[in-house]
């Protein structure tokens, strides 16, 4: 929340299957997308280049969580 400066949005407000990006979702944009990549690298050691290639994994919490668990090195 803090990294993306999402005021007034609590983690429990974001449904597991909700679209993170785009107008019909939580409303993150492309800049948030690349910021999330960096945040995930810093916290979990995920490879930046691999994340930049596989953008589908960022669609929702449900798609992102297994990816992080499977690839975390921290």
């Amino acid at each position, binding site marked *: 929340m803090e*990294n*993306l400066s999402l005021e007034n949005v609590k983690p429990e407000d974001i449904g597991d299957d909700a679209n993170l990006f785009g107008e019909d979702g939580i409303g993150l944009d492309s*800049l948030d997308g*690349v*910021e999330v*990549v*960096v945040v995930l*690298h810093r916290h979990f050691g995920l490879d*930046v280049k691999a994340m930049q290639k596989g953008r589908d994994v960022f669609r929702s919490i449900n798609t992102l969580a297994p990816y992080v668990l499977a690839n975390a090195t921290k």
Partner: protein
Amino acid sequence: MTCSPVGIAGIGAVCGAGDDIPSILDAFRVGRRNPIKTLPFESSIDCPTFQVSADLPILPDRYNNSRTLRLTMRAVREALADGGIDAFDPTARVGVCIGTTVACQLNSVPFYDAFRRGHEPLLDPVWNYLHANLAQAAAKLLNITGPRMTVVNACSSGTDAIGVAAGWIRAGLCEFAIAGGADELHPVPLAGFWSLGVMSGQPCAPFDRTRSGLNLGEGAGIVVLESEAHAAARGRRNRFEISGFGSACDGHHLTAPHPEGRGLETAIRSALAQAEITPGEIAFVNAHGTATPDNDRAEGKVLARLFGPEVTFLSTKGYTGHALGAAGGLEAVFTVLGLREGWIPPSAGFEQPADDVPVAPVSRQTTIDGKYALSTSLAFGGNNAALVVGVRDTFAESFFPSPVTPDFGELSRTGEGQGGGLEGRTDRGMIRHWKASPPPPQEEEIQAPAIAPAAILGIGAVTPLGRNLEEVARRLREPADPQPSVQRVNDPLPAEPTISKRMRRADRFSRMAAVTALDAWTQSRSVCQAIPQEKIGLIVTSGFGPHCRGFRFLDGLLDCGDIAASPTDFSHSVHGAAAAYITELLELRGPSLSTTDFEIGFEEAVLLAQCWLNDGTCQRVLVGAVEELGDVMLDCVSRMAVPDRPIVPGEGAVFFMLGPPTPSAIASIEATVDLRQANPPIGHDWSTRFGRSAASSAFNFLGALLSPEVEIARVVGASCELRQTSLLLTRHKPTF
């Protein structure tokens, strides 16, 4: 809207494709490019870049030897020689407008690293930064007196700078103008673009099916522009001209281009209209073509829409990399060369058309036969610029049979040339051999530009005395509190929820600018509503820019490594971030320009706004100055302070909505230039109340405007050697 074309007297360039124009042409002739895998500095980022290996001039001022400035002067030297100019005659006014990105920022990583550790680093990087503003340094080196401006519009800076300079000449502000762009390879933008995920680990492939991002490059591209009258007077007819220029913003997003390229289309149409030609008369296009998926797709769509799917075009970034501020300058030079030589090289890096791009660049050397060519640039923050270069039908041979070489002395190979240690080198390669113009004779009349003043239609300000102007005016009339040591602004959060949501990632710098611009906009709404969107322009000037966010970016770089720095911090740390927010919030579609010129920034911005209003580029211009204070700057100020002359640093923002002169306006503002420095200031110096900053002249003007008894005031900006700019206020009615 017609306009007289401006002649191109000379061109010069240095980049990864070659040390000068002949060697660049050699590379183009055989389609050779030279991406280099090893970076010229330490980094964990693995990517090719396009580097300059040429000898660069050593400049006389100890603090003046930034690589970017040395690249600039090398290209300036070639352009002047090309134009047969070995000295400017004393009555000619010469303007300088250079675009850049890195050179304008205080981003020395070792300096900040030492500062963070509490080591009190030497202030050399700060002095270097203060002395290396490109336009001011170039003007000083060449001893010239025309307008000067450093454009920081990210990737379109070089093209924008040429457009500005051409406008100055048409307005009669100068006879010559040196214009273009320069940038050096640097670890900070390298980490920044990497973090945005737009950089490729392979040599770039613009418009190609497999394109995966840009490569950075460095260099400088310079054109010397000349008025028709002056060329005729010195017996020379310039064969090439700037036939037209257009600039327009997307108002869409801080880092992504508008997907359909709406701003680019507006800019191109505007440039074609100015040149009075149809798209069919364009012989070829030098596209921006960075090889990012988004840019090439959006730009390709615009090219197809305007010129048809068979348009002849190329991207030269396959040869030069993306040289950021230099790109527009280099590409203007390459556009002239295409017309001059009668051919363009294959678009390096391109092999196969892409499904998502409706056009394909030339894949082999292509003969060019035509009178006009177009260069396009798209920038972060949604700035788009388009330049039409034209060939004149008939031209007589110059009376000067061969180009002269300005005597710059021997260029010497050097190390970094930055900061200290020029001992032993002072006799070689110094620009002091340049035949500087003598100062204009004393009896010469004050050079007043024949440009109408601008009417002030709306005012916005965020100051240490508050944001409500009536409140600020009241507090100015009261005696000052015991002198504070620093004047800060209370954090201005935009109150309106929709705006504060869109500004969630913005820092104090962008917020101060946005809130202030919004106030000026709101106040002038009733007289702006009927104006077409693309006729409202924006100019934002800042000496130090969003440096606090820049240091936050360096925090991430130092703490997490250069492959894990924050792209949000990076994109907000460039000067153009504030303008990007303003164009998005106010839905602007006209020209948007960010500039940096320290204490003369606001005067030159107002002068340019007057040009835009007078030549029809705009019907309204929102002009503002923004400065912020932060820990690093306060520390530097206190360490640089002279004990018996204390400075009270200040911060804040001032914006005016300007329009053509009208008696119903509150007041008019006029930037005047005085080469004899004879005009005394009229009015009070308010810097004790607002604090001192690079925006002090804007604040002094505001102070005069908010003082009801002031009918006329002359706010004198800083004098730069031979040129003093000032702002004349003429009141028509009370401010409140």
